[in-house]
């Protein structure tokens, strides 16, 4: 069982939403990561068969999905990014309607709906109108819809948006179990959702696939680029301008522990007098990053996570200067066979 995406492209007027993307999805959970506008939703719509690629082909077990037509859609579950429902629908109506759309016979439908409602903790709201449900419950109804026909291929666009942490954990477990011998593709901004359960991840940027691999393989790409240090709270704004801080935590002694991304330097320059004067008495030495070395003095390497890779590839508005190599040139990452553009010099929000 495999889904081959073969050099597909899609353009909207002057924008190339998906640009020559090729990958082969095999059973397991696949995480599709990318910033807004990276082309994830367009790619998913093409996989779902509701949008035709301008070029390239999508094959399921070697057969073009355009040829399989209804047969492909029968084995297919899809949760769109925007969960829609008719306002008069109760949860029951919605799932029965979805079952009818999927061509499921009425007899089997009821049993399957009850199973899913139980699984997704929706039994209590079975007869409630969807419009009156909370965001998380609505999302769960959407997930139930996608799972109704026990699909071989499950595509979910932002499935965990609106779910609380407990629901997300349950959803992840459900998906892991479900994906044992099926292909599950999840697009999400919430990196931790795919970090733990994804068999493989694909990262998209500007319509192109820039990286693909297991979580461990991808995380290895930011090895030596994730650091943490403790700084005085009053100097935080200064550090924020200079470092790509991905996390900060207030410590009890009035200082701040920061986690940041930077190209690692083998040797730290000597502490300057000015910086030494600024350090509180008895505190570990702290040094501001300089052009040649972005690390602050007490930095120690931190264990990288998938989120760090995501933030490395998709710099947020956190640092004035982005990562540079020793010569001051913008960092370019090379990931597998793809060429991944690194953070741009001086770009605040690439």
């Amino acid at each position: 069982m495999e889904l081959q995406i073969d050099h597909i492209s899609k353009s909207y007027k002057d924008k190339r939403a998906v640009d020559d993307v090729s990958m082969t999805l095999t059973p397991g959970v696949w995480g599709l990561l990318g910033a807004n506008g990276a082309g994830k939703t367009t790619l998913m719509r093409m996989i779902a068969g509701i949008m035709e690629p301008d070029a390239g082909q999508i094959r399921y077990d070697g057969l073009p999905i355009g040829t399989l037509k209804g047969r492909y859609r029968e084995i297919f579950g899809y949760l769109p990014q925007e969960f829609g429902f008719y306002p008069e629908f109760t949860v029951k109506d919605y799932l029965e309607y979805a079952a009818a759309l999927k061509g499921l016979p009425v007899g089997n439908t009821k049993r399957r709906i009850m199973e899913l409602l139980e699984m997704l903790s929706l039994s209590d709201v079975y007869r409630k109108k969807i419009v009156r449900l909370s965001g998380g419950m609505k999302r769960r109804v959407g997930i139930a819809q996608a799972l109704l026909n026990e699909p071989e291929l499950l595509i979910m666009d932002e499935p965990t948006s609106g779910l609380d942490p407990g629901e997300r954990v349950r959803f992840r477990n459900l998906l892991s179990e479900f994906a044992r011998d099926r292909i599950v593709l999840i697009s999400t901004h919430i990196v931790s959702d795919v970090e733990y359960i994804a068999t493989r991840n694909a990262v998209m940027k500007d319509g192109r696939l820039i990286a693909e691999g297991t979580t461990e393989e991808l995380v290895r790409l930011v090895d030596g680029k994730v650091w943490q240090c403790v700084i005085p709270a009053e100097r935080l704004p200064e550090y924020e301008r200079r470092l790509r801080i991905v996390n900060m935590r207030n410590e009890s002694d009035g200082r701040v522990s920061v986690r940041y991304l930077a190209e690692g330097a083998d040797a730290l320059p000597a502490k300057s007098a000015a910086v030494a004067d600024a350090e509180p008495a008895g505190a570990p030495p702290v040094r501001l990053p300089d052009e040649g070395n972005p690390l602050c003095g007490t930095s120690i390497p931190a264990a990288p996570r998938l989120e760090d890779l995501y933030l490395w590839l998709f710099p947020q508005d956190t640092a004035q200067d982005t990562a540079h190599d020793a010569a001051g040139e913008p960092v370019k990452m090379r990931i597998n066979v793809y060429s991944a553009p690194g953070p741009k010099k001086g770009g605040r929000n690439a």
Partner: protein
Amino acid sequence: MMSGGKVSGGKVSSRKAVSRKVSSRDFEKCLCMAMNGGEAELTKRPGGEKRGMAEQVKPFGNRQQETRLNGGQRQVEKSMERLPGETVCLRRTAALTRQEAEERFGRYAGCSGITRGTGLRSSFREFLLLQIRFIGLRMWAAQTVLFTVLGSVLWVLMGRGFWQEERYMARFLCGLSLAAAVSSLPFIYRSFRYRMHETEASSRYSFAGVLLAKMLMTAMGDAVLLGAVFLGTVLWTGLPVGSTFLYLMLPFLLASWLSLSLMGRIPAAAFPAACMAAGAVLLAAAGIAGRLWDGFYLQTLTPGWLAVCALITLLCIRQAKRSVRDAVYPKLQIA
């Protein structure tokens, strides 16, 4: 298409044996290409015997389905056995037949084990019946209320004499049929308004099937409502049967044709308003025509008018087919 041969359901029919031979080999080669993602070589057994298609096809699961597939294979092999074993590679023919091979393959996959889950699927008829429950009843109820309110208001305002006056009745029927047309088609837009179109488009029947079901429901509802109005008019008013038919059908068909033509050509959000506008334009045109031409509301069903109705019906069917076949509506809107 293949040179001189036609492939149909595993059988090869041709005028010339040579062409048939070439076609069947190329055809099987194309099946392999479809299977192997471009690798066109046929697998041969050590003894030179060709390996059957079913042996190369991995994804197919259950016994019954394999049997059906093997049936197709036997048909292909049977046609091969009748032919000498020479191999002719015609790349051009292979390219031409590849598309057909893929379609054939799709059919084999259709009876293969790629579908898990229940395996059983409901028919389009069952799907349509369910659509009536979910969407049709609401639409028809809205239309019934609209018709009843219109009739009641006119009854109160105009009195009993209104219903016996031919001109008034013709105008009334004209307006009623336009209201029927423009009030039903926007129900199709509900998918977009409530963002159900992506879920519907990715379903078994695709958006084209769902659209067809909705159109059929719309047509059924309108037929029942207009039929009831027709009967009521014929039984209780002084308007002749021919006139009743004409003033009910012609505006309805025109409004439907305009609305169907708009579908997929304008943004989804503007569709209901555009349908209403089309209805209003037609109503205004009918009003102006009534003022300019005394006999406009005194027409009856002549062969000429019947031909006009038939022509517009054909245009409606053409537009509906375009909408379903090209799935123009979702294509333009989802982007």
